[in-house]
């Protein structure tokens, strides 16, 4: 074999199985530190706290009709969360790439399931999203592309789910764009939620993970509905104007209702001018006050 043939064969072999340029490794177990939105990503948000959510009237009305015991309905106990839960949930994530056994190319990146969220399979092979009338699931359908060394995933076809775990909802028309950004030992996720049914503009949040010292096992636990005290066929709810929790944020933090009930304007700096003259610092923290151990 000539040197030409050898070098050519070497080059071909080297190219096989190598990732495309600019791909980095996102695989591993990633722990969530929850230093921000600690309550929202921990025990759960305060009832009646919709600050910063760009609700339209329908989104707000839907949220205010919510009673927490809805999740105890036998019909909903095993409903689980949509992929948005990755951005607002408590736990870490486990990621790995699924390689084609012949070519070695990455066919998909996978964010493993957690007990109440299905796996996110991010297809990297260019396949199209299903048609708009295709069935929707909690996990939805996700494709991804590399933009430099940022993996950008796009999720469609989800069932309705929680935007915030206090009744703020997403519709089955919602889509999520998720950017996976790795800086050394920090994995930052930036996600944009679009929902033409409940939001007036995209809802955008970010969070960071660090390598987990212990393995995060990916598992979608089997779910068996049990009796949690809500009779089958009933839907716990508040009628319009009857939600007693709309004053909760005022009681705890002196945050007025016009802020607590959300709306796109509440996420922008100029909103502070609206509440400046009436705000006073509460005397002390009374609930969920402790620093992170």
């Amino acid at each position, binding site marked *: 074999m000539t040197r030409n043939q050898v070098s050519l064969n070497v080059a071909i072999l080297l190219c096989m199985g190598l990732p495309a340029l600019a791909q980095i490794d996102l695989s591993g177990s990633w722990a969530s530190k929850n230093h921000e*939105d600690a309550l929202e990503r921990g025990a759960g948000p305060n009832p009646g706290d919709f600050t*910063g959510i760009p609700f339209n009237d329908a989104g707000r009305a839907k949220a205010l009709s919510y009673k927490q015991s809805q999740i105890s309905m036998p019909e909903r106990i095993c409903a689980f969360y949509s992929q948005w839960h990755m951005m607002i949930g408590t736990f870490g994530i486990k990621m790995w790439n699924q390689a084609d056994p012949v070519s070695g190319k990455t066919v998909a990146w996978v964010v493993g399931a957690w007990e109440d969220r299905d796996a996110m399979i991010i297809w990297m092979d260019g396949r199209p999203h299903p048609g708009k009338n295709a069935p929707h699931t909690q996990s939805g359908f996700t494709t991804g592309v590399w933009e430099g060394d*940022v993996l950008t995933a796009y999720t469609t076809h989800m069932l309705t789910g929680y935007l915030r775990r206090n009744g703020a909802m997403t519709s089955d028309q919602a889509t999520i764009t998720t950017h996976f*950004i790795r800086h*050394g030992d920090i994995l930052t996720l930036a996600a944009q939620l679009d929902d033409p049914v409940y939001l007036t503009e995209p809802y*955008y949040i970010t969070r960071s993970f660090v390598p987990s010292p212990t393995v995060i096992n990916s598992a979608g636990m089997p779910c068996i509905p049990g009796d949690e005290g809500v009779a089958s066929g009933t839907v716990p709810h508040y009628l319009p104007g009857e939600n007693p929790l709309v004053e909760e944020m005022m009681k705890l933090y002196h945050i007025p209702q016009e802020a607590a009930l959300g709306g796109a304007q509440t996420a922008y700096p100029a909103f*502070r001018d609206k509440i400046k003259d009436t705000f006073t610092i509460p005397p002390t923290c009374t609930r969920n*006050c402790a620093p992170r151990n």
Partner: protein
Amino acid sequence: MRHRFSKPRISRTLFPLTIALALPLLLPAQGGRGGRGGAAPPPDNPKAAAPIDLTGYWVSIVDEDWRFRMVVPPPRDYEGVPMTPAAVKFADAWDPAKDEASGDLCRAFGAPAILRQPEHLHITWQDDRTLRMDTDTGTQTRVFHFGDWKAPPGPPTLQGNSVALWETARPARGSPPHGSLKVVTSNLKAGYLRKNGVPYSENADLTEYYDVLKEHNGDTMLVVTIVVTDPQYLHEPFIITSHFKKQDGDAGWKPTPCTVKW
């Protein structure tokens, strides 16, 4: 009959060509497995070498930690912050009236906390090697120095001394350049991570990563990953992210001084 010079001539051409083609594929992207952890060598002209455009006006989107950012949280509300016992003791003694009386109004506007304020940013190139960030809320100015800049000796300051470098990704063929900005800030004057007196000390260091993301609806977002380390007041690095939306102009730009009770 093959020309006796033809074979070595082809080899000399193809062999280096093959290696040249193969080598870039063998080399990991900068940062390798650790993502953008690897730094590119300091370019002669960081402004010209910028893989992303940070300049312009940005507005913060406050939809996380709202009650800690848009209003002043209650005293002793420390949720989420990995505070040491010394930090809790310090913060328990927070007295906004005392801060006001002493004229120390900007303690929550130092570099580790300034990007948590509801605000607009104006980012410009001060010169080819210096990026400048102005905020309307608190009217603060941060200066990011590229290259082999050395901080002059001096006392700690609210915004500290910031050294910046581009972390560039090797783009796929035909793609525009990608990358991010890493900023390391030290020599910080002690201040507050949150307005209700959660402290950081003069031993704190700040590392930030600035990423620009283009969303499919046309929005351009700036995502800043913020890491504060402080052996005195934090028992682990405090990691948060702030995000901003690009504006076409200076709409909403409203310089306001530092405040304590608001």
